[in-house]
């Protein structure tokens, strides 16, 4: 619900908010069946907040789609369910049936194959099943090199492929939403936001986020140079591994076996903002899937990964 009692946003965040609302409204008006991809992370939380603002006093005119790999942090699922329980937006959850059927796990199949089946293919299946012609995502251009060239409206072929050489020029804020049946567009209202903007906006707007972003003492195990949260019973310790209790937090959230924590004392939003402004590593550093090889995000995007 709107809260009239907070101070106005600074002009920088206000400009980003206005731009995002404009994009939301434009897509909602031009496409027949949009959907919003909802990953439960901080960017998704901001995206959801902006969608509510864009359509107020109306309801958000599209559902949220969560691709559930079955390996998300428990606290993420709790926030998702709380959002769904508020009742002002429809939340759809989809899991690739191959996962449970063939017992595909990030441990047994490796991060690349697991990500392909449970995220990339799952997303394509869910988008096809829903017949969606536009999908909102929370990607930001500052996240990763191949995203720096992404359009606001990113054009996808009927098999969801992204061809970097075949994207439409985007001049001014005039977006071309004309597509053929089967083709689709991924729309990115947060394109021009940086990680710092996201956090300052969460603070200014008091947006609920998963508590794992805040530092606390948590059980961890060190694996392949990453700190893995060792709360889920399905995490089996390898020889030589030990559970330690350390003060950690997460800069990004994904599947718990593939997401590395950082040591941190940042317990509040102020602490987090101060921490990232002096950070010497980028936020995607904790993501195992980016590290396979140079250009690996580009390869995944061509295949249809978000």
């Amino acid at each position, binding site marked *: 619900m709107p809260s009239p009692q907070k101070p106005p946003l600074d*002009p*920088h965040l206000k400009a980003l908010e206005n731009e995002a609302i404009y994009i939301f409204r434009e897509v909602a*008006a031009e496409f027949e069946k949009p959907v919003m991809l909802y990953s439960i992370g901080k960017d998704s939380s901001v995206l959801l907040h902006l969608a509510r603002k864009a359509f107020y006093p109306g309801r958000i005119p599209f559902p949220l789609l969560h691709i559930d790999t079955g390996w998300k942090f428990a606290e993420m699922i709790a926030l998702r369910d709380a959002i769904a329980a508020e009742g002002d937006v429809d939340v759809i959850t989809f899991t690739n049936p191959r996962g449970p059927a063939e017992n595909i796990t990030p441990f047994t199949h490796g991060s690349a194959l697991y990500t392909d089946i449970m995220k990339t293919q799952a997303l394509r299946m869910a988008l096809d099943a829903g017949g969606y012609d536009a999908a909102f995502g929370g990607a930001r251009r500052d996240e990763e*090199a191949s995203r720096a060239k992404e359009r606001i409206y990113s054009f996808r072929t009927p098999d969801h492929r992204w061809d970097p050489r075949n994207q439409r*020029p985007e001049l001014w804020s*005039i977006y071309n939403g*004309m597509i053929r049946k089967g083709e689709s567009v991924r729309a990115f209202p947060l394109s021009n936001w940086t990680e710092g903007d996201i956090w300052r906006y969460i603070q200014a707007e008091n947006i609920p986020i998963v508590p794992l972003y805040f530092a606390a003492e948590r059980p961890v195990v060190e694996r392949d140079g990453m700190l893995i949260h060792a709360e889920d019973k399905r995490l089996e310790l390898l020889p030589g591994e030990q559970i330690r209790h350390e003060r950690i937090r997460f800069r990004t959230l994904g599947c718990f076996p593939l997401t590395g924590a950082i040591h941190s004392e940042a317990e509040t939003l102020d602490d987090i903002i101060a921490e990232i402004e002096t*950070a010497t590593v980028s936020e995607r550093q904790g993501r195992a899937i980016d590290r396979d090889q140079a250009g690996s995000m580009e390869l995944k995007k061509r295949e249809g990964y978000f």
Partner: protein
Amino acid sequence: MTVSTAAKPASEAAPQTRQSRPLRFLTCGSVDDGKSTLIGRLLWDTKSVKADQAESLTRDSKGTRNGLDLPDFALLTDGLQAEREQGITIDVAYRYFSTAKRSFIVADTPGHVQYTRNMATGASTADLAVLLVDARAGLLEQTLRHASIAALMGIHQFVLAVNKIDLASYSREIFEQIAAEFREYALSLGVRAVTAIPMSALKGENVVHDGKAEMPWYDGPTLLETLELATVRSAQTVGFRMPVQRVCRPDESFRGYQGTVAGGAVKPGDSVVILPSGTPANVSKIVTYDLVRNAAVAGDAITLVLDRQVDVARGDMIASIDARPATGLHFDATLISLAQDGITPGKRYWLKSASRRQRVTVETFSAIDWKTRRWNEADALAVNTIGKVRLHFEETAIFDSYEANRDTGAFILIDPDTHNTVAGGMIQGRASDVSRIGKGSNERVVLLALPPEVAEKLIGSDFFASIRDDVEVRQTTRDQLAGLFDDGKED
């Protein structure tokens, strides 16, 4: 090579709140002028490159050599694998960095002739253009072309980066000659705000840090200092405009029009007009998620509630009743052709401007010849050419001139066959066209000459709005009018 992982000192930390939106600028120039290297250097020296990115930078740098013990900065911006393999930039890359003073969005645009469309894309949203030239090569046709496009698209602040000055013996004479030549060209484009800077992006001289050691003769600003002081293009000053994006109707009791204010300001009680219908109404409320507001200004995304039931749809524009945009079926524009097939005269394209999409045909008058820098007669526009055209609509179109308002004066053309965006355009104004007045060429028409203040009252009236498409309004001087009426001879 070692990567500095030192945290930024507290004094350099970005501020918690910012007093303006980010400055948007683009970098452009010819192939090999070192654009990507320059942006890489900006990011590196403002400590915007994180350690893990630097690590993959040095890992990916293996096999490329720049002769210095430095990372290949171009790898920071050349994000796509195809580009890395070919060693070129094939698409616009957006980069973000900030200093204690402000934040920046950089559009890195390619220099190849066939990618002029990307340059136009970057220029369309930019406040400032950084043009690179190789000090050894001087100004090239490509450089001047990019300057022309940037100026045509409304950029009035230029930085001329005379790069690779280290390879030209740090010669003051060479720098000053190129700078003078460019200033003269910029003036011919109507651009006065030119800052010329001698620099070596590779060595980091006059980018973020000064280059006094090698260039004691230069006492002007570095690139970063120039960017920190540049002005953000401010909201346009014509009357209130809000293109309607969608109608919000959650229940029978509420009907609001959602859109972003594209010019001027609005408050409850203001008289507005719905275009193209010409229906007048008053604003009763401005609704946002946060609160019911008592005013909104250019840039604000709002929901407008009117005091009466009127027919309003997506694509309509709500505007000040006493400072309306132009409406009509014929407009003159400057067009940049972006697609391989060019622009075909007589073909029915889709035109999208703000939230409005409608059918249009294009009549071409002239095109820029880059060799002679003249407008030559032309009846079609090949890819990457810029032309002066007349747009013919089937239904009423609504525009301001691009000069008066970027948001309501810009448009794109979409090919109905491929759905591709094939051109970007800027409205100059309503076409002068008397052919729509009356029924036939021998029909009597009446010329009415009025003092401007009387004409303004008449034009502002509801009656005039209802017949706007059937009349032609021109401004002229009394002397010229006297010549037209042949007053002298009848005396």
